[in-house]
């Protein structure tokens, strides 16, 4: 079979966002499932974030895939649908279209369209392998009942087959087929770290923050790749930088000690970036130092807020003190901190000021302020569904307020859009001469990407700093009334009309 896997663009061509200006990593989900079938089938990957729009229809017409698979999160859901619609439009019924990823897993009903043949629910490797074998063996594309982990249309309704078990040890999966991304080599980046590879060393998270869907996707189980396998994959990377895609890398100190052992023993010289919690940083200062010496250059953490009460309401199971201590410790170690903070829709003017002041006090190298929102599939979403002002997937990008704001919306966005300017002091004090002097080799490695990132940062800031950008996005889409209330009022109107008639 010929199989085309597509990473959709996060939004329309030419739009500026965090995904194309600050951080673009390899499509790890696609290389992971490609590896499961590439020995027996011809597989290609195209990354529409890095391609001109003509590439997709050209490849569809020339490669004539039997199966097109797309992965998506929430914000790129419509873009993923557009890819599959385009595939059906060009190839007709002869192509099988498959959608996977977080958003379709958590809300498959939102993808029940005639141009999507099936949705992969949950982890994709085994489901994809079985589906490909079924289709390649001449199986009926409309009879997928025997394959676990799928949703598809049957008659008048979308049905789901039995849940796919997500218990397989990560070491038993084949290594991702990264060679299928050779055409894009050197184009993935985080800030100035251009030419960046990506490795996922664990799946799932043991915490249950109410704004996050990761633990729900992986059913609160966490599985790990062995240190040996991680080191093997690191050695295979030609890129100087590696982003570990784990949602929470900083867990199980013993595993990380073993990884450092492997890195030291094999003399692996890579700079790597991770996502992890601040409590782990505080509790394991020596391990953080050792990881720094093994190449750790950046930790991205959800600091979330500057007040203890909010941390509790988010079920973060962490403290403000940990955030402060972790920021200081990382700065002292000359590890770049990327800190994510949330502006809440119920913020008043002073709340914004307090948050920005707290960020400056913490000296975060790359502060990112996002807007707290109930992301589809999360506990927060289920609790706040009736307050949603929109169900438009594009707005769940952490940059828009999808529930009513306490401040008038214009003022809310004016104060929110000020975060870049207002946290400039944090960047300046973090990236001190001392910081840079302690890591001269890292600075040299990042040097080739500094000019490009500087330019990207400039255009990103222009977009993020302009409150009109957010308001223009909302135009005609976000009204004053929540969707649920609008529907209720329309329903009453219809009933009244019926009575009148």
């Amino acid at each position, binding site marked *: 079979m010929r199989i085309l896997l597509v990473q959709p663009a996060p939004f329309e061509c030419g739009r500026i966002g965090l995904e194309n200006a600050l951080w673009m990593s390899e499509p790890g989900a696609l290389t992971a499932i490609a590896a499961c079938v590439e020995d027996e089938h011809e597989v290609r990957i195209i990354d*529409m974030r890095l391609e001109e729009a003509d590439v997709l229809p*050209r490849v569809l017409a020339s490669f004539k895939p039997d199966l097109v698979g797309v992965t998506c999160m929430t914000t790129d859901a419509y873009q993923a649908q557009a890819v599959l619609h385009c595939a059906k439009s060009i190839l007709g019924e002869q192509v099988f279209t498959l959608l996977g990823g977080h958003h379709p897993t958590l809300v498959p009903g939102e993808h029940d*369209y005639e141009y999507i043949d099936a949705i992969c629910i949950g982890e994709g490797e085994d489901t994809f392998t079985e589906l490909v074998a079924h289709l390649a063996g001449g199986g009926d594309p409309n009879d997928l009942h025997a394959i676990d982990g799928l949703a598809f249309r049957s008659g008048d*309704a979308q*049905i789901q087959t039995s849940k796919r078990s997500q218990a397989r040890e990560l070491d038993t999966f084949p290594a991702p087929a990264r060679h299928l991304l050779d055409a894009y080599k050197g184009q993935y980046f985080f800030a100035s770290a251009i030419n960046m590879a990506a490795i996922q060393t664990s799946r799932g998270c043991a915490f249950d923050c109410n704004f996050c869907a990761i633990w729900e996707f992986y059913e609160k189980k966490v599985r790990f790749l062995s240190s040996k396998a991680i080191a093997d994959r690191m050695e295979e990377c030609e890129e100087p930088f590696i982003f570990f895609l784990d949602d929470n890398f900083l867990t199980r100190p013993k595993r990380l000690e073993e990884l450092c052992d492997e890195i030291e023993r094999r003399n692996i010289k890579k700079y790597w970036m991770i996502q992890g919690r601040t409590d782990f940083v505080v509790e394991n200062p020596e391990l953080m130092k050792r990881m720094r010496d093994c190449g750790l250059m950046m930790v991205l953490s959800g600091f979330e807020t500057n007040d203890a009460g909010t941390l509790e309401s988010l079920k973060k199971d962490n403290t403000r003190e940990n955030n402060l201590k972790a920021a200081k410790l990382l700065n002292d170690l000359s590890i770049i901190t990327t800190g994510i903070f949330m502006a809440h829709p119920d913020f008043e003017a002073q709340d914004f000021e307090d948050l920005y002041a707290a960020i400056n006090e913490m000296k975060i190298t790359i502060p990112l302020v996002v807007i707290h929102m109930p992301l589809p599939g999360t506990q927060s979403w289920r609790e706040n569904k009736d307050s949603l002002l929109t169900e438009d997937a*594009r707005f769940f990008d952490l940059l828009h307020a999808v529930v009513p704001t306490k401040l008038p919306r214009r003022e809310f966005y004016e104060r929110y859009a000020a975060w870049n300017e207002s946290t400039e002091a944090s960047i300046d004090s973090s990236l001190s001469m001392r910081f840079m002097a302690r890591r001269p080799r890292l600075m040299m490695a990042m040097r080739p990407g500094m000019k490009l990132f500087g330019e990207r940062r400039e255009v990103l800031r*222009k*977009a993020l700093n302009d409150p009109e*950008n957010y308001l223009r996005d909302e135009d*005609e889409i976000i009204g004053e009334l929540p969707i649920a209330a609008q529907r209720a009022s329309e329903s009453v109107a219809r009933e009244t009309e019926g009575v009148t008639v």
Partner: protein
Amino acid sequence: MSTILIEKEEPVIEAEETEMELSPWLAELRDEVAAHPGVNHLLLSRLRTGRYTKGDYRVFGLQHYPMVGTFTRYMELLLLRAPSSEQKLWLAKVLVDEYGEGSDGEDHASLYLKYLYSMGVEPGEEESTPLCTAVWEFIGNHLRICREEPFLVGLGALGPGHEWAIPKMFHKIIPGLERAGMSYDDRLYFDLHTEQDIDHANWMSEALEQLGQDDEARAQVRRGALLSLGARFRFWTGIERCVVARRQPHSVDAVRRGLLGRRRPDREESPGNRQELFQAIQDNWSGKDWPVRLPSDSELLEVSQ
């Protein structure tokens, strides 16, 4: 196996097409047109799957509107160059229809204006809105094809390149217009072209069957279709950039500077509005050069390679 019922979304039903049977070479060309990136630009699928608003379609419409008044000009140019009366007759049939016959007295331009005004365009705005380079390119390309290329290349551009392409493209646009709240009456221009142009396509097919007697003739028809569709692809890309720029004006500069990971930077700012465009068409008729650099044939053909 457990079965979970999930609420069903109603699929949008596309209109039935009833096209005439074609000889193998034309059927192959029709398939090539149907699969061409110009007909399957991601913007069109995005319009189908995304949530675009009247404001977005307003931008789209203001850029698209100039195309409405120029198709007849291409036809007129080609009519002059048709080598026989029979061919002139085929073209004239389509031309009369394009002038507005069969549209209850409302020609295409009036229908399109109705669409624009239903989206809040102020009278006159359709004349004064700056048009993106891609619009000028598209129209300039077609004027050139119809004036300078062999007759069959022109016929390929206007026949397969337009009549076969438009119903397929508009089928994708209509569900988005519906979703944005546009009534059938307001979007009649689009609906009409999914119905009427099937007749046009059939007339054209009949002509092409008779004219495409040898490989050279067939190659000319194909070349015309691909040139037109290559220009169409660039046109949709330009429209998409305009729609994005409405909500995020800062993106224009970023794209021009090639900062967002893509390979081709955008062209420069607008060459002019519709009034200026139509003046340029008049001037071009009188022999003046087209004021915008046109993409080369190889640039247009490479879209489908």
